[in-house]
């Protein structure tokens, strides 16, 4: 609230700046898609947007589409939240204490190079094709990014911030709570945003390979039965969902944590 003048100046205040430009951007995307599908390719394997939209309506009427979306989203949300809840304290500890960093670095530096997609097989063997394996994979894909961003944030706090707090009479615990933690919030949120994008990739891959529902499963079935329009409905849904979730994330950051992170 207090930073309103600069924030609104940066965002631009007109309707066009906030929504108009984006609407034109989206519209042009569908126009180009239409032109490409109808005139440039002209194949049954690349449907234009309108039939895809109609198919989407049909699937939504039957309730099938919502079911798949909900299945994928709930897995993402569970894994993402658990991964973040675990990742933040681990990252804080790694960034604050050198011994903890040395001990845990082999884990983070080793495991983060094994992509979650590569862990699908192990996850299915360990947890079966139910919810557990998906949530495990999303936690896996979330946690390392959150840990590394958080640790970087804590370790990068200006020394004078800590020193100032010490000479103002703050205890170690107070410095952690009132200096280290708030100074790290922008890094934590950035890590979570990146992790959210990764979660989308991972959930689709996991559902493609082993699942009874979800957008990934929908893609897989549509491929099996050559339902081209269903494939495109799933793809568009993924793009829209990702876009909306990211917007929601940015909105939440601005509303609840704007003072920590004026740049997002």
């Amino acid at each position, binding site marked *: 609230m207090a930073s309103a003048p*600069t924030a609104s100046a940066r965002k631009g205040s007109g309707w066009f700046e906030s929504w108009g430009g984006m609407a034109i951007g989206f519209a042009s995307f569908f126009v180009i898609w239409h032109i490409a599908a109808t005139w440039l390719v002209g194949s049954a394997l690349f449907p234009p947007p309108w039939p895809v939209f109609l198919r989407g309506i049909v699937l939504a009427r039957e309730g099938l589409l919502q079911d798949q979306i909900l299945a994928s989203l709930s897995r993402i949300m569970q894994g993402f939240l658990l991964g973040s809840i675990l990742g933040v304290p681990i990252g804080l500890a790694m960034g604050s204490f050198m011994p903890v960093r040395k001990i845990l670095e082999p884990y983070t530096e080793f495991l983060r190079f094994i992509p979650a997609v590569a862990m699908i097989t192990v996850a299915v063997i360990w947890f079966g094709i139910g919810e557990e394996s998906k949530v495990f994979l999303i936690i896996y894909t979330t946690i390392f990014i959150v840990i590394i961003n958080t640790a970087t944030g804590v370790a990068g706090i200006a020394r004078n*911030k800590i*020193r100032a707090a010490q000479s*103002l*009479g703050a205890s170690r615990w107070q410095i952690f709570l*009132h200096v280290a933690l708030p*100074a790290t*919030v922008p890094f934590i949120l950035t890590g979570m945003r990146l992790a959210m994008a990764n979660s989308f990739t991972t959930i689709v891959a996991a559902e493609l390979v082993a699942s009874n529902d979800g957008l990934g499963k929908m893609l897989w079935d549509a491929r099996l039965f050559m339902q081209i329009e269903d494939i495109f409905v799933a793809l568009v849904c993924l793009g829209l969902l990702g876009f909306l979730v990211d917007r929601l994330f940015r909105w939440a950051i601005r509303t609840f944590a704007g003072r*920590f992170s*004026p740049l997002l």
Partner: protein
Amino acid sequence: MSLVSLRNVGKTYQSRLGAAYTAVRGFEMEIEPGEFICLLGTSGCGKTTVLNMLAGFEMPTEGSISIGGAQVQGPGADRGVVFQGDDSLYEWLTALENIEFGLKMRGVAKAERRDRAHRFLELVGLKGQERKHPSELSGGMKQRIQIARVLANEPAMLLMDEPFGALDAQTRSVMQQELLRIWQETRKSVLFITHDIDEAVTLASRIGVMHAGPASKLKGVIPVSISGERNRTSDDFIAIYRQVYGMIREEVALAMQRQG
């Protein structure tokens, strides 16, 4: 009894490869209550090391430092520190919240600390800026917040490490006058680090001139007895400037030589 006494203070840094560097050796100084001491020296002469040891950020490897009769064991709220840059401010807090930070840490009730923060915000001339964040304020304003933040905490003394070093000449001059006014109102002891002779003669009641580093100590202390407002073009100002300049000139040459 003096408020602060530094006795035979020395600081030797040990590098990881085992090389030793002695920044300060045999440093002696007494600071009386209400005094404004400027510590003047060439770059690399160890003046910041002295301040950091007095602040408790670093421990001396030789000698002893005491404040109010007690040995300095580490940082404490009795010594408020104003840093050179603005990276010590908390950018997620407003100007007012920055100023009341110390009071909050020390458990002062909300209404009272608000009250006190407002008072010091006004004292440093920031009335009307209380709800702004540091990123929305100019360099001079940010240094004012630092000063108010320290003063609101009511320390026994202020330690200022080239606090106006990053400001432009006009702003610096204004800030010097403001600081003098605040000092006259609050009568805190101040240890002010600078490499600017003009700044030292403008502010100090005594100027401590340091030898060039390494293994630096005080070369001499010059009392500044100018009554009334200090005017850069007045004879007594120029006389003291000359005296200080005479002392530091050789050290500058020495420092240049040593740094190649």
